């Protein structure tokens, strides 16, 4: 392996980002390794989706840098950014399929856009990608006819269409039944190990995520609170991590969004 291969795939330094007055990231440092499944976990609303959008160059940080494959994504010009994005797949929380074209056309879209494949090659490739997610039979359906879980799997087929170097999965497990969940976990693993597509999985499904991750970052309140292998996290000394991993209702992580005292709030009406 060359030296290049050992540099992190994504290198985040001193990342600051806020929405209005709400600080989402307050100095995050992260090294996401190549050829591994990296999980980013944290409670709902901590900014996991936001982090993926920052990595994909869709949002700009206020401070700090994000390097993807050695390139500072926020200083690239449009052309270079789009070129880099062709090597990054992203699976959106909602699927984000184009609703006016069929499943087949959705998966074919990036191929038609960025390659000159003959139509028979294109067809073969699309059917193979659909086969990989178990939805070859659904090729003629429209996105509106799919369930949420199916839509996500079609979106995965689309994300791997261009054989990217990495895929960012935003909540891949929500809305999947136990069987397709198992298939999906295996699929992410095999895409990662066999096809050498590095994976970044963002999730709050603790069990499934710990099962497939090689490396885990836990974020909360705009910071990385802990990182390490799943085993290290399982025996973590931090109350915070214990609470999150075990799903306990009480602990340092409040269930409630910050608010005034309940009694005062009710009396003030």
């Amino acid at each position, binding site marked *: 392996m060359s030296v290049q291969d050992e540099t992190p795939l994504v290198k985040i330094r001193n990342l600051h980002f806020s929405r209005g007055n709400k600080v989402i990231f307050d100095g995050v440092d992260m090294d996401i390794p190549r050829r591994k499944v990296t999980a980013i976990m944290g409670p709902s609303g901590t900014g996991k989706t936001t982090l993926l959008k920052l990595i994909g160059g869709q949002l700009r940080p206020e401070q700090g840098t994000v390097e993807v494959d050695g390139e500072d994504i926020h200083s690239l010009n449009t052309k270079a950014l789009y070129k880099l994005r062709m090597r990054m797949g992203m699976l*959106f929380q*909602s699927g984000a399929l184009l609703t006016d074209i069929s499943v087949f056309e959705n998966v074919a879209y990036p191929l038609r856009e960025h390659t000159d494949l003959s139509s028979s090659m294109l067809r073969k490739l699309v059917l193979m990608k659909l086969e990989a997610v178990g939805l070859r039979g659904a090729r003629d359906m429209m996105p509106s006819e799919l369930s949420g879980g199916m839509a996500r799997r079609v979106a995965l087929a689309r994300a791997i269409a261009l054989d990217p170097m990495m895929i960012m999965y935003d909540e891949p497990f929500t809305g999947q039944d136990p069987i397709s969940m198992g298939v999906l976990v295996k699929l992410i693993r095999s895409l990662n190990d066999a096809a050498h597509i590095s994976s970044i999985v963002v999730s709050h499904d603790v069990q499934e995520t710990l099962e497939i991750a090689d490396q885990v970052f836990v974020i909360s309140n705009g910071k990385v609170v802990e990182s390490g292998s799943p085993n290290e996290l399982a025996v973590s000394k931090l109350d915070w991590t214990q609470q999150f991993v075990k799903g306990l209702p009480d602990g340092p992580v409040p269930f409630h969004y910050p608010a005034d005292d309940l009694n005062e709030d009710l009396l003030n009406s």
Partner: protein
Amino acid sequence: MRVIMDYFVNLGRKVIAALEKTGRGHMLFVKMVAGFDEILRRPSLLIRQLFYIGVLSVLLISLSGFFVGMVLGLQGFYTLSQFGAEASLGVMVAASLVRELGPVVTALLFAGRAGSALTAEIGLMKATEQLSGLEMMAVNPVRRVLTPRMFGGIVSMPLLAAMFSMFGVLGGWFVGVGLLGVDDGTYWSQMQGKIDLHEDIYNGVIKSVVFGVVCTWIALFEGFDSTPTSEGLSRATTRTVVHSAFAILGLDFILTAMMFGE
């Protein structure tokens, strides 16, 4: 004191927000127009939009044109016959349509039909992350999604306005000649003699091109800039129709003053 301060602070915020929005609107316009080469490379994108924006509006526009023409025929006949000038009915109907009613009413109907649909479509594509999805597939959503719609609107509007005027003239003829007994030959020959290609027709076309640009721009920008919720989307759609109507009527006055002012 406090109240007054708050008032000014709020006012200032609103002004800044409005200015920012205007700025975003102009930036988007430049980007949409700069994406023109995308259409040259993929004409099918434009053709599809011409169908959705233009062809699907044809029935609405031609029927409305016919009715407006019939009303013009009636009103015109009543007024003109008081001076014994029924013979000029054809000119009156055609001039009103080509100069004013054709471009203006077509644009108002266009904003209600095609404009609101464009806003809803783009807003929904944003809310369902389809635009983000395109970006992550290294496809520029402005060039791919907005530019063809922009030019589809610009091309459709003058054609629709011409159609409106044509059906209006027929409507006026139907009432004037068919029902009220104006002479068929005079209706057409007076129209042919008095309607000026430059003064009337070109100016009408210029108006409808301007309205086409403005209406489509407003519709696309409102969709693109909408808050991605159902409430945000419904507000954006309403704004499209209201702002378009104001823009059309205001611009119509300015353009008319410039064209026929001297």
